[in-house]
């Protein structure tokens, strides 16, 4: 009953949002309804057994000890033993049942969220910061798991204990209960104030931890720069200031609990005193038995503990609610490159047709307009042009990382938007500018392109573009572990793995984004050769940053200012004396040798 108290404060979640989160969580939990009821029954049974102890003590004192009936004492002891043993098993089952529901929920949430993330298209990943997306799957769900692993159990058992205690106390002696309830108003006021203050303090601490950790991170990863400029002292004192703020935030939250806990404790002991004093007076008047007073004293200690624990749980609930809200928001983000109902497979061996294509970002910035281009099956075309002219965007549209805002792109006469995503990905492979390695072995990294490929097939694919020896010669060969995202491999070698994936995928259409930065000279040549062999016999669209690459292509398309400025063979374009010829002349002139 005190849980709701802080939620209507406007710190983080308003009442409507909280309600929506609850409703949605309930919907997700619906398939587990039976197990929830089961867990609820167990929790209720356990709570009753907790209260049965003091009740039995009461009966033992009043009907046994006071009247000198030893048989009653013995019966009570036996009953107590039975109940204690039963409660052991009930509690055990309850912990497992509640944990299982919680963990199932978390797992399902993780899988659903990841599934959704995989459906999201490139524009989504361009828009959102990677760190934010990752934190939805990690820290936001982790903030829930704390609640699931401890909080849920505490919440259910304390909440039930509180309610049932009050009911039983009332049933035993309404008068004494009413007396004890006099202590509740200050406790409620204090609890509400505590929730509000500690929530604010908690948010402060969280910010402080975040800031200190990123300062620490920066101090460690930037240590070489700090030392190079002899700034160790300045950085250390800067860190101390940030750390001091974290300490202050911690102390603020300690101060809040340092006054709250005494209030609860005083209320608890004060009520005990009242129960003994006033209860004793009523015993004197003959309205109560001494067993009842004992029962109250023992049960009251159970009553104030849950209130205190529930208040402290509040922060956990709050941060879990905030985490859930963000997770649900992400789940609600629409998939922007969906598959149409009735989509068909792309036909094999078709030409790529780009018809009157335009593309703008969401904010209206136009990147491409009126682009027409037909690429014959098996042709190699190089896209060249200055940075930002739109050549990468054109390539990404062909790979359907984005959908054009106007016009259409078709392969073999089928509009990409009408094609199944599976057939599209089978027909096409995209080799990004920078080789990216996943944790695992080299061979696993390459197998990514075709999960069912055998080791031999992977070896053949690599050999076909001449990169097998380079990796097979490593001590562990293709089974070399890629650690820390491939920090032991050079940029060129990562690029080779990337090309190896493309070779394994053996697509009809290949989109290659050439690396801009320089690789070390030895690997550079191997990369070049591998790209050549990979492109053989395939429809290839290469985003060229080097004019030698362009010169080797069947045709060159110059993208400038969002349009196709020129299309033709290298020789034709040189002869024409246009933009490409000018680029080429500038390049030749800049050669230092």
């Amino acid at each position: 009953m005190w849980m709701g108290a802080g939620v209507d404060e406007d710190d983080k979640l308003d009442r409507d949002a909280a309600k929506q989160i609850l409703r949605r969580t309930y919907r997700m939990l619906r398939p587990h309804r039976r197990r929830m009821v089961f867990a609820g029954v167990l929790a209720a049974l356990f709570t009753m057994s907790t209260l049965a102890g003091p009740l039995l003590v009461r009966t033992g004192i009043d009907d046994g000890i006071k009247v000198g009936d030893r048989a009653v004492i013995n019966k009570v002891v036996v009953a107590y033993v039975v109940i204690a043993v039963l409660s052991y098993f009930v509690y055990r089952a309850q912990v497992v049942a509640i944990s299982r529901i919680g963990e199932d929920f978390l797992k399902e949430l993780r899988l659903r969220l990841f599934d959704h993330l995989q459906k999201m298209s490139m524009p989504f990943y361009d828009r959102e910061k990677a760190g934010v997306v990752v934190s939805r799957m990690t820290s936001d769900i982790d903030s829930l798991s704390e609640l699931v692993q401890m909080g849920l159990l505490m919440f259910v058992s304390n909440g039930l204990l509180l309610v049932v205690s009050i009911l039983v106390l009332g049933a035993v002696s309404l008068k004494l209960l009413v007396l004890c309830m006099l202590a509740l108003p200050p406790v409620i006021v204090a609890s509400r104030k505590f929730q509000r203050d500690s929530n604010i303090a908690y948010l402060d601490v969280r910010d402080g931890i975040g800031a200190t950790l990123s300062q620490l991170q920066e101090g460690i990863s930037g240590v070489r720069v700090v030392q190079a400029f002899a700034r160790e002292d300045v950085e250390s004192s800067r860190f101390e200031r940030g750390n001091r703020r974290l300490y202050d935030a911690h102390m603020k939250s300690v101060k809040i609990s340092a006054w709250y806990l005494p209030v609860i404790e005083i209320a608890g002991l004060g009520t005990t005193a009242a129960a003994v004093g006033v209860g004793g007076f009523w015993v004197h008047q003959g309205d109560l038995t001494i067993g009842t007073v004992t029962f109250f004293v023992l049960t009251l200690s159970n009553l104030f503990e849950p209130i205190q624990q529930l208040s402290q749980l509040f922060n956990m609930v709050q941060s879990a609610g905030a985490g859930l809200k963000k997770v649900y928001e992400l789940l609600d983000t629409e998939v922007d490159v969906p598959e149409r109902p009735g989509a068909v497979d792309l036909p094999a061996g078709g030409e790529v047709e780009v018809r009157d294509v335009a593309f703008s970002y969401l904010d209206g910035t136009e990147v491409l307009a009126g682009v027409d281009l037909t690429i014959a099956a098996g042709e190699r075309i190089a896209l060249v042009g200055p940075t930002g002219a739109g050549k990468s965007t054109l390539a990404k549209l062909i790979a359907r990382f984005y959908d054009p805002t106007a016009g259409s792109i078709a392969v073999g006469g089928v509009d990409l938007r009408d094609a199944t995503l599976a057939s599209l990905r089978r027909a096409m492979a995209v080799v990004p500018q920078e080789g990216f390695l996943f944790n695992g072995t080299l061979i696993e990294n390459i197998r990514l392109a075709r999960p069912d490929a055998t080791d031999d097939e992977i070896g053949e694919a690599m050999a076909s573009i001449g990169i097998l020896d380079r990796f097979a010669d490593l001590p562990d060969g293709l089974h070399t572990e890629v650690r820390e995202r491939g920090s032991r491999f050079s940029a060129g070698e990562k690029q080779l793995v990337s090309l190896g994936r493309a070779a394994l995928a053996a697509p009809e259409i290949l989109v290659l984004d050439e690396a801009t930065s320089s690789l070390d000279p030895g690997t550079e040549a191997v990369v070049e050769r591998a790209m050549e062999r990979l492109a053989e016999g395939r429809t290839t669209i290469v985003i060229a940053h080097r004019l030698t690459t362009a010169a080797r292509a069947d045709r060159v398309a110059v993208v400038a200012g969002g349009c196709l400025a020129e299309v033709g063979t290298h020789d034709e374009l040189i002869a024409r004396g246009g933009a490409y010829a000018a680029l080429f002349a500038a390049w030749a002139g800049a050669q230092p040798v």
Partner: protein
Amino acid sequence: MVGLLWSMTKVSIGLLLRQAVDKGIEADDMSRLLFWSVAIALVGCVSGVLTGIRRYLAFREARLAEKRLRDQLFAHVQRLHFAFHDEAQAGDLMSRGNTDLQHLQNFVVMIPLTIANVMTVVGVTVILVLVDPFLAVVSLAALPLINVVAKRFGSRLFPSVMGIQRESAALATVVEESVAGVRVVKGFGAEDVVKTRLGSAADDVYRESMDAARIRASYLPALQLLPNVGLITVLGVGGHRVVDGSLSLGSLVAFNFYLILLIWPLRMLGMIIANGQRASAAAQRVAQVLSTDPDVVDAPGARSLPPGRGAVRFENVDFAYGGSDVGVEAGAPIPVLDGFDLHVEAGTSVALVGATGCGKSTVGRLIPRFYDVDSGRVLIDGVDVSQAKVDELRRSVGIVFEETFLFSDSIAANIAFADPEATQESIERAARLAGAHDFIVDLEHGYDSIIGERGYSLSGGQRQRIAIARAVLADPRVLILDDATSSVDPTKEHEIRDALGVVMEGRTTIVIAHRPATIALADRVVLLDEGHVLAAGTHEALLADNERYREVLAAADDVADDTGVSV
């Protein structure tokens, strides 16, 4: 002190309760009942206030200790030599500065509480024995078991909790990768592959979590059960004795109250033991870092650099990585420089050229004494760098690293890193020289734009240009450019090259580069091979006479394509 008072008040409440029952209710004496129940209320107030004070003091000390250790750790890490950082994993240092300190704090905060709890347990036991020795022994017999169970609970739960953390980290890796590598995943249609990976990671987390839940399920109920054994004993044995008249009813009630009072401290003991194990491991890991001495420190009687324009001389230098004690984990030494000689006259520039691994970056790193040489000497303006004051030496040498690191701060503050007092004018001048001014003013907030992890993401080339500006602003007498333009967009590189020409004018500069056009900026070229100088001369002369130089450049032939290409 507060803890002692606190446990005294806690313990005395049971005694007061006994008095209230025996002298008040049982004896039917209402004035004494009133007296004793008011006493309970008053002692309750004192006890509550003491709880608050105790909690405040305990947390204050623990947080203060955590803060001080973290400050110390940070300052120490800042001073540790490069070789240490080459070996240490950033993530590992982070966890020492974060998780390990947290574990320590968790333990420290419990120390005063533990003392108070132990006193409570002792006090209660003494009182119970005084009240009724027989009943005390019988009812307390089960209680040591609580401690044993709690201890086992702690030690069994601990590895399981670590397992959850490990599996969660593995899951986070899968997520991070699939986000960072989304282009690969989409490009090869590998969504199902990563989904399968995530599925198995999520299964692992689930399995570990349920293991922990089952451990909790078998111990928590036991902890709940054992105090009941005491209560039952008191009721059974004590009840009969009250009937016999050998025990007062008040004593029976007090016994019950005390047994409940003991539950929490005994449970805590188990937790503290588990925490203590974790804290001592954490303390060791923190101490390991703090006890590593920085290798590169001022020599006794270190001197200032004399005024000069930065003549650099290497005399017969040998150097191997991992040669000295690197603190964390020493690998086998890898010889890099072998009898290396180099003389760069003040105000001239030299390009170091050679295949990957020939030692050219190392040469750059020995000048500001990031590492100490194994034998031979490195001199700046005639002073051995190992005899110069480290701070001063590093301020005189500017270096632009191959991998750019920028701080989460404004662009202006990043450029003015060497001299936070620098005027806006000098910051802009440095940015212009590095070819960064134009793109900076195009940003929404110009020089005040926040960059780094949590700010604007700049391209690799833009970041490198800011790093160059940072080095230029320091106005060093020796400038080292370690592949400083490798990520710069070829369209922009010629602009920077022009700018670099101005910066290098009359300044001792060491250029480490692949691109011939950049190499050609230097007055002289030194060709390195396997740790020593193979040949030296002008670019043209070497090109004409030296076969190996032509080979190295020929290997870079394809690289030559992108120099100055304006595609």
